[in-house]
Every structure is written in C-alpha cells, then in structure tokens.
C-alpha cells in the first residue's frame, strides 16, 4: 500500500467550465449549462439516495423552493443577485430539513412515495397559488454579469465551477465522520448508535444537504433561463435525476457522467423534433424519460460503476506497522464504584416474558458474566441495558444517574460501549473506517488494530475477513473510542473465535477492567467465563436463579439443573 493521496478527480469537472469560456455558440452553451445544473442536483440526490439509502422523488421540489425564493426576493424585494441566490439555497435546505423531519420516519418505498406525494402537492401549489405566477411562472433572476464572458457563457461557467465545488464538498464529507456515520447507517442502525451517532439527525442532515444542492441547482436554473415555472420541477425531472444517480452507481463522478448521458439523450430527441408540435415533443420526452429508466434498471441496476468498484479501492496513508498495542486509559474512578445498576427489569414480546424481574449491578473494574441456557433472556437483558429495546419495566442507572428513557446513541456518548451477538460490522467499509467510526482520532486506529492483531488487514474490506477477524474489528472499535468506556456490554464475544483469538479477547477485556471499565458479558462458553469473570449471574426463563463467584457458583445444584436438566422425579 503506497502513501499516495487520492487524486483530486473532481477537478475534471472544471474542464467543461474552461470549455464554456471558449465556446460562443448559444445552443451548446445552454446544453452544457443544463448538464452542469442537473449534475449538481443529482450529486445532491446521490447523498440521500446512495449514501443514506433514502430514494427521494422530491429533489426538483427543493430546486423549485430555491428558484422561487430567489426570484421572488429579486422581483419583489429587489435583492441583488448573490444574496437572493444564497437565500434561495438556504430556503431549499431548510425546506428539506423540515420535510425530512417528517418524511424520514418512513422506510424505503414508503419514503419514496411520500416524496412523490410531496412533489405532486408542490407542483399543484406552484401552478395555482397566484404569488408563484401560475403556469406562466415568474421572471427569473437577472442574467449573470461576469467581465469578459457573454450572458450565455456566464451561467454555464458558474454551473460547472459549482459542480466541482459540490463534488469536492461531497467527497470531503464522505470521508469525514459524517460520511462514515451515513455509510454505517445504511447497513446497521444498531452499530451506528453504538458508536454514538443519532441516526435520525444523520439522515436529516444528509437530506438537508441534498436540499441545499437542489437549491443551488434551482437558483442557477432560473439565472440561466431567466424564467421560473412549474414545468421545470415536474415529477418527470425528478425521475430523470434518480436515473442519473442510479447510472452513477457508487461514484459521484459517474453520477455527473449520468447527467451528461441523460441530458444529451433528451436534447437529441428534442432537437430531432425541432419543428414538431408541442404535444409531440412533450410526449416523446416522457417516453424517453421512461425508457431511460427502464433500460438502466433492467440492464445496470447497480449502476455503471458497480464492476469497477472493488478494484478502485482508494489508497490511504499506511497504518504505522510498529504501533504499540492499545491500552485503554485509566478512568478517574475508584475500582468497585457502582457503574451500571439495573433493578427489576421486565420485558415481554407479545405475551411471552423474555426477562422477568432481573436485577444486576456491576462496579468499575469488575467483569460480570451473564450465563444461562438458550432462551434464558440474556441477550434481551443486554439489549435493554444498551437501550436498544425501550425499557418496559424496571430501572437502569449509569454511574448513579437514571438512564431509563435515554436513547442508545446518548448512552454511547455517556460511556456505554457494546459488541453484538450477530456481529455488527459494516461490510462495505474498510477495517480502518470501521474502527475510526468509533472515535475521532486517526492515531488511535493503529494501536487498536495492533491490540487485536489486525494491523496487516487495515485496508481490507470487512467482508473479506474471516468470522473471527470480524469479531476482532468489533473489539478494536471499542478500543479506538476517544474515551475509555465506563461500561462495556458484550454479547457472546467468544463465539466462533479460535483459541488464540480467545486469548486476545480475554486480554482486551482484562485491560478494560484494569482501566476501570465495568464489563457485562453474555457468554455460552462456561469454561471461558469461569476464567475471566469476577462474578457470574445465571438466568433461566428470564429469571435470575443464582449469582456468585465462579468457583462456587458453578457447583450449585440449581445451576447444574438449569443447564443439564434435573433428574427425573420419581412418581
């Protein structure tokens, strides 16, 4: 792995901007400008559709919000071009944030249909409310004036400069904590919460961001055409944007390529019908729009870049190979201080009690193991402690403060770390990104990977690792947190691990305990638990049946009965 920085490929989109400075013919300039504007809207849509996994059909609606806001401010309040444009972008982002707060409660298909209904509603309002000028629309923004450029050149040049800026911003965000959070969220809401992200706020921010991109596109569109009317923001245009994003696949640059192809297809069909009646042009346009989407979805549903994705893994700075294995920093608490206390926890699924009256307490530096036969309610109990199931009955205190109704991501921020039974690692992210997602410090990654023996695999995709190695990624994620967790919840961490990996696991758990972390671990392997735990709690049918130190507890008859079944009672 070389230490090459990723090439600034977004600079490629400055080529059309430069070309637009040279070309003088109006028609190519308008087409080029349209491509740039659609590319900006499509890159914004890609953030919600590809990164956050939310298929929006309302992207043109937020373009309309930007366009109408800017035009109305210029027409009625006589704002200059730039402030009016900025206000338009802000209005679009705000509208997306507000509607996102409602619509993002919906999943997948229902979200798509909600945005479709929003688009239809918005078009009806723009067409009929007098302030928006009905079907004729409003006079758009006054044309740009850039010294040395004609009025046809200026908007096109500005559009493509903004395409480059938009791509740059999107890639930066993708690699920042925000982008990692979004990619985690697409695969697992649980793991995203476990490292302290608020899923709802992540999705809302992504949606508002794509709304801002739409706002930029909308403002540019009215400046380019000097008019703003409802037909520019129809459902059909939203569908075309979706087609561009799907064509682009995972790559944002390819999304711009999608915009090029799709706008050109439309322009070719339009220019071949130059003298045809309006209905013919409109009808053909709809048919072209539909056909483009059918062709893409039937033949390249994963987008054109899906084949190349694996090979174009980006090179990053190599992990320092001589990194010292991480040791969690000591917490400023006395060993034994009560960290996590749960009283009388009850939880039922339908009519079945999974947990019924379980209580536990674990102090700083203590390792508590919860064991019990299958179906005893161990995982449910741990899930409740992490906050992933809402608390139905009982009380949970974290370091002396009640956390009964505190969301999982807030508990994570207050020092609760977790590893899960059905391993939660993000397969489509590299090992390094998975680990980095837990905290903010790049320099914490190498020691954490060193501690679990994964330094060599830092840039591998998690999907390429063995099962045991994937578990180690989860462990490294806890090690790389900015602060030593106060509580560590582990659900069957040893299952599927080899003997050496178990030794690593035991070392890490002991290191956390030595630093003052209170560890609760659920485990099937009684021998493993007996060597590691300070105390053991035995659950059966959701009820605690015994508790004590390993040496004596495991000899108690009630525990043996629960595991092996009691001898038949003579009649």
């Amino acid at each position, binding site marked *: 792995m070389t230490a090459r920085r990723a090439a600034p490929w977004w600079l490629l989109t400055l080529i059309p901007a430069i070309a637009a400075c040279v070309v003088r013919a109006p028609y190519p300039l308008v087409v080029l400008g349209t491509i740039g504007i659609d590319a900006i809207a499509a890159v914004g849509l890609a953030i919600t559709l590809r990164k956050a996994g939310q298929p929006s059909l309302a992207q043109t609606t937020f373009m309309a919000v930007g366009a109408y806001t800017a035009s109305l401010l210029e027409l009625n309040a006589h704002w200059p071009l730039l402030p009016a444009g900025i206000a338009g972008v802000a209005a679009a982002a705000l509208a997306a944030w507000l509607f996102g707060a409602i619509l993002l409660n919906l999943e997948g298909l229902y979200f798509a249909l909600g945005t479709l*209904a929003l688009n239809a509603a918005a078009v009806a309002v723009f067409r009929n*409310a007098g302030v928006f000028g009905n079907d004729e629309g409003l006079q758009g923004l006054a044309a740009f004036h850039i010294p040395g450029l004609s009025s046809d050149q200026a908007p096109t040049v500005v559009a493509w400069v903004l395409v480059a800026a938009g791509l740059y911003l999107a890639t930066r965000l993708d690699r920042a904590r925000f982008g990692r959070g979004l990619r985690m969220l697409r695969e697992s809401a649980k793991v995203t919460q476990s490292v302290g992200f608020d899923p709802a706020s992540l999705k809302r921010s992504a949606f508002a961001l794509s709304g801002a991109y739409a706002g930029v596109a909308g403002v540019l569109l009215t400046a380019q055409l000097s008019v703003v009317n409802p037909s520019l923001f129809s459902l059909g245009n939203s569908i075309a944007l979706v087609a561009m994003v799907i064509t682009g696949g995972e790559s944002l640059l390819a999304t711009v390529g999608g915009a090029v192809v799709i706008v050109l297809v439309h322009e070719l069909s339009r220019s071949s019908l130059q003298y045809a009646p309006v209905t013919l042009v409109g009808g053909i346009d709809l048919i072209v729009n539909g056909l483009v*989407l059918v062709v893409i979805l039937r033949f390249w549903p994963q987008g054109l870049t899906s084949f190349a994705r694996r090979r174009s893994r980006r090179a990053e700075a190599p992990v320092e190979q001589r990194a010292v294995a991480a040791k969690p920093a000591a917490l400023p608490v006395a060993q034994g201080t009560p960290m996590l206390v749960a009283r009388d926890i009850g939880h039922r699924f339908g009519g079945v009690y999974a947990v019924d009256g379980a209580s536990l307490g674990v102090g700083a530096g203590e390792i508590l193991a919860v064991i019990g036969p299958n179906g005893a309610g161990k995982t449910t109990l741990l899930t409740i402690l992490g906050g992933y199931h809402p608390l139905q009955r009982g009380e949970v205190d974290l370091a002396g403060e009640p956390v009964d109704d505190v969301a999982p991501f807030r508990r994570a921020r207050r020092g609760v770390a977790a590893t899960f039974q059905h391993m939660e690692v993000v397969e489509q992210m590299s090992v390094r990104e998975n680990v980095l997602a837990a905290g903010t410090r790049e320099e914490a990654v190498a020691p954490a990977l060193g501690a679990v023996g994964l330094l060599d695999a830092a840039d591998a995709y998690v999907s390429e690792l063995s099962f045991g190695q994937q578990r180690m990624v989860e462990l490294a994620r806890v090690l790389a947190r900015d602060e030593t967790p106060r509580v560590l919840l582990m659900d069957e961490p040893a299952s599927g691990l080899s003997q050496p990996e178990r030794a690593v696991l035991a070392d890490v758990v002991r290191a956390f305990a030595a630093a003052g972390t209170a560890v609760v671990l659920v485990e099937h392997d009684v021998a493993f638990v007996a060597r590691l735990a300070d105390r053991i709690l035995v659950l059966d049918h959701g009820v605690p049946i015994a508790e004590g130190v390993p040496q004596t507890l495991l000899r108690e008859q009630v525990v043996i009965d629960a595991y092996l079944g009691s001898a038949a009672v003579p009649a």
Partner: protein
Amino acid sequence: MEAFVQYLINGLAVGGVFALIAIGYVVVFRVVRIVNIAQGDLLAAATLVFLWLMNAHAGLPAAIAGAVAAALAAALFVERIAVTTGGWFDDLRAFLLTLAASQLIQGALLLLFGTQYLTMPASAPPIIAIGDVHVNGVYLLVIAIVVLALVGLVLFLERTPLGWAMLATADDPLAARLCAVPIRTMGVLAFAIAAVVAGIGGAAYGAVAIGSWNAGTTLSTAGFAAAVLGGMKNPTRAAIGGFVLGILQALVSGYAASYLQDPLTFVFLIVVLLAPALARRVARRRPRRAARAAAVAA
C-alpha cells in the same frame, strides 16, 4: 346545507374511484409484492378512451368496454416492464420500473389525445330530488357501480378457487408453487384484475370529472394513500380509505380551493403512514421514575 350534501355526494363518487385504484394497488401488491405507481395512469387511460368513445357517440356499453380494454392493455404493458421472470426482487427497483411505465403511459396518452381535456358530451343530467336537495343522478349511479365492483372483487377473491389460488400466491409464493399454482400467471391475473377495476373506475371517473393525459400521478398518489390505510393488504379498509379521502377532497375544494387536493393527499398520506407509529410510541410510554415514585408513595 344543499352545498354540503352536493360536496358529500361528489366526494363519495370521486372517493369511490380512489377506492377502486386503492384496490388495484392491494391486489397487485399482495400477489406480486410490487407497488404499482402506474395504477392511476391505467385509470387515466381508461377515462380518456371512455370519454373519446362517448364523444364519438359509440354508446355506453362500447365506451365502457373500450375503457376496460385500454386499461387492460396498459396493465399488461406495466407487468411486462416491472415483473421480471426471476419473480420477486428488490421492491424499490420494481417500484421505479412502474414509475418508468407511468411516464411511458403518460407520454403515449399525450401523443394520442394531446393536452386537451375531455368531458362527457353535453346532455341534461337526470336530477333526483332527495328531500329538498337536488342531486345529479349520474353521481348516484357511479357510487352504486363502484360499490358493486368492490363487492364483486371481494367475493371473487374469497369465494372462488381462482381467488384462493391468488391469495395462496400472495401468502407464500413457494408453497403455492408446490401446490401447482402457476404463480407467474397469478401475477399477470393480478394486473388484469387491477386493470378491469381501473377500466370501470375510468368510466366512472369520466362521468363525474374530466379526462386528461396527466391525471394519473394525482390519482396514483390518492389511491396509494387510501391503500396504505388498509395496510396495502386489506381491500375493504383500502376502499374505506378511498371514500374518506374523496369526501375530504370534495370538502376542501368546495370550501377552500380545488388545487389544495394534492397537498391534502400528501397530508392524508403522511398522517396515515405515521399515525400508527406515533400511537404506539404514546402507548408504550411508561410513567417517569419520579411520577412512579410519587404514585408508590400515595
């Protein structure tokens, strides 16, 4: 009062059309697990063909037959595009394919009928007096037809072997196939039923409203909102959803402005989609710890 009753009857007639669209969604969704967003476009196509034939003095039976045939052709076209031979796949992709089909149908309608609005040929409508309120008899007829179609569909699904085969496919495609039910055929049949319903609905809609090439999107969203009220599974509740939305829209366009119908559909859809989750959240809320302590003390 007279205006209110008129809006109510208007709403029932249009709501009945929404109900028929909603049932089209339910039948297709249950059998092939696809949300067919072109359902409203099937109805728009049927409406235009119906009105065109009525204006050409083809007679009512021929016009209705033409409407059903148009919807059927459009539905089989959607089926070809959206259902691949592999059967059930990614629901979002299938949905987007029906969306593409919707664009194709709208394009075809625009090419065939242009941007003009079609209406029923002028004739004196039969006026029926209910008390001191005078009602257009066509509306009552439309309501009756819609209710008959609804009842017929429910009976077909629940009382005939073919209906059972469809419901079996809906519940478990694999098990149905093991029982020698040809599930691809059942999928085509589901689209065909949705089309017949849309054809009848198109004729009914033509009798009380105007036909235009782009009515489909509005009708699709309204019908979907109604179908969601039935959980996309229950035809009766979906039909009720259609009637409720129809009446609400008639009242809004009567007392406020007719262009608020689409925003109303959006609000209705959001409320229907989010209300259950909200209700669950409220129901699940336990008293806070301080409140519980006070209750124990008391």
